[in-house]
């Protein structure tokens, strides 16, 4: 007996040392190995409580293999980590979630009402479970006491349980409330839990190995023994098999302590990946020997022994006191680790969601009063830990430690599973609303209390026997364990089915019918789209928040040094001198998230709200944010358009520049050309006139010939000068047009003949098109000048063997289009932009012309309100002439 106390105390001392060493290592920055995936996996093992350690065997004795469903559900959840857990952990990290109540309250617009409701649900669901731990440790202690004192000495269970409760509360307060920011992990606690996980696994495996190989003589005899025992046949009800698997899976996610180790204490998302197979392996090992131990216990121990204690009593009955001691330690560690984490999780919820809001409202607008709030929060946590453990103790006293362990565990599971629809809906469905969540949770909680929790306290304790069997006011369909007249169902399944059905239905239906507040919609988008990270979180509008007030408040929660460091960092990021950053919405978000790590989302939001002034987000703010986004988008599209415009302008400039360069080259060429053109006839005129002047004896024929040459040269000069003059007149816009009427075909015919094209010449001209009959009202002479020019160009420059010229004419909307298409080689692309310029000539030599023809054409067409352009892609040189069929009178007056 004394030995047992000594061993327990020694074990607790070891845990203390481990926890201290881990804390010390973490503080010294040597805690890297503390954050390995294996430690994370082991910390998840608080799922296996004393209920699992002792109760699973009892469960197996009562229902055979059915006990395994309690492990199958969590295994499936872990295998399916990619679906849910990954998202939960990511949300927990980005939103600095401190508990499951915090998660759901933060998702639904930081609603404190939801947080309070969930906290109450969690306390109601967890207290019996903690009581269960106290009970199992006390029972195991009693078993030892009886064994060591020959079955005579009965220990005082009340006192034992009280001592255990006090000890656990002490340990939890010491390690669980050292730091305020829950997101900084409790390294000491996590390490202690990991050690305990190993201890309980080793203990259970040791008992199992002893039972299989020490007592039964191997695996095959063991299997035979199992089949021969009273639980040897498969008698599991399908409903319970599926229902309990679902229940344990739901509870695994929703249990406050599981959420705490899985999400809140999670250091690295990648740890989940290892845990996804390692934790099922742990569970598998934990359940591997349950059935053999149960069967052996049934075999060896007298009828009526408590099957919940087989793990202890089987080794004891074989005189294996050392093994029994190890097994006791295993059960002890299962109980302690569960109680520690559960109370930490619950106390966080209670202090963040119940104590702090009350304290805030009592102190009124006192958030910005200086003084350290951290002590208030920590004190609230410490007191809640004590209160929760004591509550569990009283529950244990009240229930008298009578009911079977497993049943109590399942009752608890159904209670916490009520959070499942809201949680899953919250992270996957943006349409879920706060009112819907409240309705779902409320109905689920009510059904659980009425149909399972109160009846489980024992007949006649709260609900009378008549009410249980006949329903309230004689309404049989409202009987707690036979709702809607469906009798004979297993109570757990019965409650699970109805509560889940009504819970989810109310949640979904009310969500569908209500409209979420702006804050809920913001948060909903944040949670559901947590992997996109695209939209910035904009919870606060730039308002009256004063940095100094914020500073005072943050110092009280984060501590002066941390708060100043945070403010300074933000100030530097904003580029502000000094330590006080601008109270920008971004800064308020950062601050709120940091604070919510300490006091929970709803409280942090309320505290900043007090300073920043009222509700943080209104529809107007949302609209403003949307406007801002729209403006930014508009601005960026404007920028884009501008840059496109710039590119285009640059392109145009480049073209112009190219053209200018070419023009300058052409101009130089023209000056020498024109000098040459003028000079050549002048030279011959001078030479021949000198001959005529100086030679007296000259034949009349020679005289006539020389005079002819001089005459033709002057004609050429005159033509050149005429052209230049013509162009100058046209360019200056001083030309007067002589309007007359003539049909287009006539104009073309005369142009063709004027260009010297006859049936003998080498150019074959064909005409096509519907527009040739049209009667034109324009300056017909000028127009035919253009035609002549184009046709004679074709004649001069067409390089084909049998040159042909196709003239197509058609009319459209009062504008006539005439195309001149030859079958020559056309004009090279680089020349097309300059052929209409003065002085330009295609090719260097070729027949005459000063390169003014097309320039004159262009000017004429311009005067005629038309245009002439080169038409590419016709298989040869092609020009298009377009002009109005009837030139308006006004036009000529311009």
């Amino acid at each position, binding site marked *: 007996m004394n030995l047992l106390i000594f061993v327990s105390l020694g074990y607790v001392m070891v845990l203390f040392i481990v926890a201290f060493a881990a804390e010390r290592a973490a503080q010294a920055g040597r805690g890297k190995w503390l954050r390995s995936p294996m430690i994370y996996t082991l910390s998840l093992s608080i799922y296996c409580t004393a209920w699992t350690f002792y109760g699973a065997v009892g469960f197996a004795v009562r229902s055979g293999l059915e006990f395994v469903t309690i492990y199958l559900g969590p295994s499936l959840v872990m295998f399916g980590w990619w679906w849910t857990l990954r998202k939960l952990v990511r949300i927990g990290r980005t939103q600095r979630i401190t508990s499951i109540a915090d998660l759901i309250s933060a998702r639904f617009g930081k609603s404190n009402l939801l947080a309070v409701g969930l906290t109450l649900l969690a306390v109601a669901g967890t207290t019996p479970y903690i009581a269960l731990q106290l009970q199992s440790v006390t029972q195991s202690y009693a078993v030892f006491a009886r064994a060591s004192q020959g079955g005579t000495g009965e220990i005082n269970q009340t006192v034992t349980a009280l001592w255990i409760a006090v000890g656990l509360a002490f340990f939890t307060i010491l390690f669980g409330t050292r730091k305020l920011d829950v997101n900084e992990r409790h390294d000491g606690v996590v390490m202690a839990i990991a050690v305990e996980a190993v201890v309980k696994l080793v203990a259970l495996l040791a008992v199992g190995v002893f039972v299989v190989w020490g007592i039964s003589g191997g695996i095959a005899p063991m299997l035979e023994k199992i089949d021969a025992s009273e639980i*040897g046949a498969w008698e599991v009800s399908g409903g319970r098999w599926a229902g309990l698997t679902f229940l344990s899976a739901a509870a695994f996610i929703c249990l406050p302590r599981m959420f705490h180790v899985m999400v809140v204490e999670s250091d690295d*998302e990648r740890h989940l990946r290892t845990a996804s*197979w390692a934790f099922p392996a742990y569970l598998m090992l934990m359940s591997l020997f349950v059935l053999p131990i149960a069967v052996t216990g049934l075999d060896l121990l007298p009828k009526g022994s408590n099957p919940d204690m087989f793990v202890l009593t089987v080794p004891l009955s074989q005189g294996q006191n050392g093994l029994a001691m190890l097994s006791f330690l295993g059960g002890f560690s299962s109980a302690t680790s569960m109680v520690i984490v559960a109370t930490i999780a619950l106390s966080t919820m209670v202090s963040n969601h119940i104590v702090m809001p009350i304290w805030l409202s009592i102190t009124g607008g006192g958030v910005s009063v200086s003084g350290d709030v951290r002590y208030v929060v920590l004190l609230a946590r410490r007191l809640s830990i004590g209160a929760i453990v004591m509550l569990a103790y009283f529950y244990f006293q009240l229930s008298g430690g009578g009911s079977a362990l497993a049943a109590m565990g399942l009752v608890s599971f159904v209670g916490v599973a009520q959070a499942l629809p809201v949680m899953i809906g919250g992270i996957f469905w943006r349409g879920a609303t706060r009112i819907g969540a409240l309705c779902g949770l409320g109905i689920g909680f009510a059904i659980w209390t009425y149909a399972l929790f109160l009846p489980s306290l024992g007949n006649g304790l709260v609900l009378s026997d008549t009410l249980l069997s006949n329903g309230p006011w004689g309404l049989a369909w409202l009987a707690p364990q036979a709702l809607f007249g469906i009798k004979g169902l297993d109570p757990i399944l019965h409650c699970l089915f109805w509560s889940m059905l009504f819970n989810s239905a109310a949640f979904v239906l009310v969500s569908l019918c209500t409209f979420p507040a702006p804050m809920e919609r913001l948060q909903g988008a944040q949670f559901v789209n947590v992997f996109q990270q695209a939209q910035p979180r904009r919870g606060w509008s730039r308002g009256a928040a004063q940095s100094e007030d914020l500073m005072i408040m943050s110092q009280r929660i984060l501590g002066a040094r941390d708060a100043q460091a945070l403010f300074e960092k933000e100030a530097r990021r904003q580029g502000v001198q000094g330590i006080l950053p601008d109270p920008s919405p971004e800064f308020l978000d950062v601050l709120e998230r940091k604070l919510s790590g300490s006091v929970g989302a709803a409280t942090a939001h309320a505290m900043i709200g007090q300073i920043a002034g009222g509700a943080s987000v209104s529809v107007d703010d949302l609209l403003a944010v949307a406007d801002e986004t729209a403006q930014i988008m508009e601005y960026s599209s404007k920028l884009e358009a501008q840059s496109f415009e710039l590119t285009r302008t640059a392109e145009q400039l480049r073209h112009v520049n190219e053209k200018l360069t070419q023009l300058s080259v052409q101009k130089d060429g023209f000056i020498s050309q024109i000098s040459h053109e003028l000079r050549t006839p002048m030279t011959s005129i001078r030479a021949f006139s000198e001959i005529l002047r100086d030679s007296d004896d000259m034949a009349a024929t020679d005289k006539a010939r020389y005079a002819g040459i001089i005459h033709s040269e002057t004609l050429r000069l005159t033509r050149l000068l005429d052209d230049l003059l013509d162009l100058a007149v046209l360019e200056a816009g001083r030309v007067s047009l002589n309007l007359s009427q003539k049909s287009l075909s006539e104009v073309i015919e005369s142009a063709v003949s004027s260009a010297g094209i006859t049936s003998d010449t080498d150019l074959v001209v064909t005409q096509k098109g519907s527009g040739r009959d049209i009667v034109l009202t324009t300056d017909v002479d000028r127009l035919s000048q253009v035609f002549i020019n184009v046709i004679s160009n074709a004649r001069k420059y067409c390089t084909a063997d049998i040159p042909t010229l196709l003239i197509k004419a058609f009319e459209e909307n009062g504008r006539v289009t005439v195309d001149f298409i030859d079958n020559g080689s056309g004009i090279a692309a680089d020349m097309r932009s300059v052929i209409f310029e003065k002085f330009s000539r295609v090719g260097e030599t070729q027949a005459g012309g000063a390169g003014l023809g097309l320039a004159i054409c262009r000017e004429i067409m311009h005067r005629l309100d038309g245009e002439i352009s080169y038409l590419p892609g016709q298989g040869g040189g092609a020009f298009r002439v377009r002009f109005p069929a009837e030139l308006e009178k006004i036009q000529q007056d311009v």
Partner: protein
Amino acid sequence: MSEHDPVFDAPNSSGRLFLERRGYRQRRIIDAARILPIVGLLLWLVPLIWPDVGEDGAISTSQATLYVFAIWIALIGVGGFLAWRMSPSEDVSGDETEQSQGAER
């Protein structure tokens, strides 16, 4: 799954192709990780159709135990393999799979 196929979205440079092929493999590993719990659930629900005691072909507890634990071990093995093959940066590929749920409905 609804995500687009990275192999066909990849530009045609040979260096990229290698990387994208790895990305493709990663996607399929993630698909497998998604399916794993469903397979496990289905296999573990098989006991629902086992005959009751006294009927022909009734299952003994030892057989049931072997069945349940064999599945368990197989799932752990596959899960471990998938976790081992998953690249450390798997979150990049997980992003757009979430987008189908992103729209407000």
